[in-house]
């Protein structure tokens, strides 16, 4: 049990993001607007690791993973930096080689989407979804494909008969399991999971998380897991990166981040979690999320930060290595863990 809490022993990285800046650049009727949704993010994801990305809505976490997946459309543009994958010795630079990116999609890099009802076509049987998503990427015959899909469903504990159902005949949990099956049928090296449990009923949430963890362990894949729910990160992520206003403000092994948060924003996220058996009053963060078209100067968290000093208002803190992780805060480590 305990060994799952430590970072994976293999240190070779599967994804390297360096100095990535992606902005929404708009120019309507002569008014230029620039929204810095991803601002100078560098991170590395190891093989066989679940990396959790946490942050509130409009913090830029969806833009970040879209940029990593190479699935951006204008007005979102990559301004600077690079996204490089390494799939077992086969290197891939997302923004240098669009052709290779096309080949890697689904085969090496896949995506678990949020609204399972919107992913599966409501007027076609589920088997067509598998065909549409994965058949082209596998390069095998129709009948071999069918048996591969059935095998895969069987392996993750779903009855292959669901292939003949329409989405409305299945429960929400079942549909989400199918989207997970869809994303993993090609046994990809890297999976992006965007809020896969947010729309689910409480009773099935744990089962879906266990399924994701189980598949990840068996295939040795890496997962970027995005959600604003810190309890989900606690349950499944090996390392967590906290995103605030387009910037990575803290990163570290899950256990360390929960025990000793270094950034005041992280400390707030963790201490505000309600728990059964304890109803003492918890404070809420004052203020509102910053507007990314006109972010605050210096540290973007300073208007809401209880520890802010003059330096925070004028100078942007760099992301520096501290203890087991990295943190971007002038007063890092001074926060009281809850």
């Amino acid at each position, binding site marked *: 049990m305990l060994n799952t809490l430590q970072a994976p022993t293999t240190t070779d990285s599967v994804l390297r993001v360096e100095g990535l800046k992606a902005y929404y650049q708009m120019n309507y009727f002569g008014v230029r607007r620039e929204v810095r949704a991803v601002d100078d993010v560098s991170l590395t994801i190891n093989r066989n690791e679940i990396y959790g990305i946490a942050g509130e809505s409009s913090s830029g976490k969806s833009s970040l993973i879209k940029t990593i997946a190479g699935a951006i459309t204008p007005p979102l543009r990559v301004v600077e930096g690079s996204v490089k994958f390494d799939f077992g010795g086969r290197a891939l630079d997302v923004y240098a080689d669009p052709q290779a990116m096309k080949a890697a999609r689904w085969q090496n890099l896949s995506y678990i989407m949020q609204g399972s009802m919107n992913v599966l076509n409501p007027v076609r049987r589920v088997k067509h979804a598998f065909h549409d998503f994965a058949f082209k990427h596998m390069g095998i015959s129709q009948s071999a494909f069918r048996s591969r899909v059935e095998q895969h469903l069987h392996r993750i504990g779903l009855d292959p008969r669901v292939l003949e159902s329409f989405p409305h005949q299945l429960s929400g949990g079942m549909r989400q399991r199918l989207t997970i099956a869809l994303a993993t049928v090609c046994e990809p090296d890297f999976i992006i999971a965007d809020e896969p449990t947010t729309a689910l009923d*409480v009773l099935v949430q744990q089962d879906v998380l266990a399924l994701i963890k189980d598949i990840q362990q068996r295939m040795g894949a890496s997962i970027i897991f995005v959600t604003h729910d810190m309890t989900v990160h606690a349950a499944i992520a090996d390392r967590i990166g906290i995103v605030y206003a387009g910037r990575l403000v803290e990163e570290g092994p899950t256990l360390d981040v929960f025990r000793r948060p270094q950034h005041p924003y992280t400390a707030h996220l963790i201490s505000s979690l309600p728990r059964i058996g304890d109803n003492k009053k918890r404070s809420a963060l004052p203020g509102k999320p910053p507007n990314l078209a006109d972010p605050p100067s210096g540290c973007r968290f300073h208007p809401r930060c209880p520890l802010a000093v003059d330096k925070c208002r004028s100078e942007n803190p760099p992301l520096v290595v501290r203890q087991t992780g990295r943190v971007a805060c002038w007063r890092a480590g001074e926060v009281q863990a809850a």
Partner: protein
Amino acid sequence: MSALLELQNVNKDYRIGGFFDSATLRAVKNVSFTLDSSKPEIFTIVGESGSGKTTTARMILGNEAPTSGTLRFMGQDIAAIHSRADRLKFMARAQPIFQNPFEAFNPLTTIDYFLFSTAKRFLGLRDKAAVDAATDKALNHVGLSLAEVRGRYSHELSGGQLQRIAVARALIPEPKLIVADEPVSMVDASLRMSIVNLFRDLRDRLGVSIIYITHDLSTAYYISDRVIIMHRGDVVEAGVAQEVLGNPQHPYSRALSQAVLPPDPEAARKIIMAKIQ
């Protein structure tokens, strides 16, 4: 002691299926509870989707008539309210807050329109200054002011702010009861606390009773005074929140409380790893 809201053996049936081949689905079965008017409280209805909690809320707001049983609000049978004047009087005392603040406000209309029309309709105000004053007062209760909100569209505000404005709108007629159906499920985890704290504050400062409907046991534990747990239309457990949620007896309430992930990596991981084996 007089009852603010009293539900007595309330049932609700829906007919499902076609014209020739139909069945009845009992969405709410025999629900009874009473809220006391002298002691404002946060009364929570917990349950998964399909448990009948929203149907109960709709009946309390008078949007749906019960198949049998009675709902009384301040002594008056809710299903027997027919005239427009009585209906307005009832609505001024019992106000709803909806799940998704982004859908609750028309995106093409400025937010203040909804606040002003609530003030005009329920308080009968005509004078511009009086309408502004009533709106500003309600917004102050939720930590905002009219100056911040005037002329803004819903897309210019964050989800947390919009939900606060939705609460402020409900507060304008100075209601006795607020029915909040999943008010935080569409709001970010980090902003959830500000809404939930606001409910506590309204109960303590303004003496408003709140019916809080949720599937999230951890926030239910955090703010509720009393709680009922519903499963397929039945109330399976009821009582003081800390006792019911801290030590659930019914198998369904136990399953619900076990479904809450603890905010602690070691404990949460053990649960997930146990599920894999």
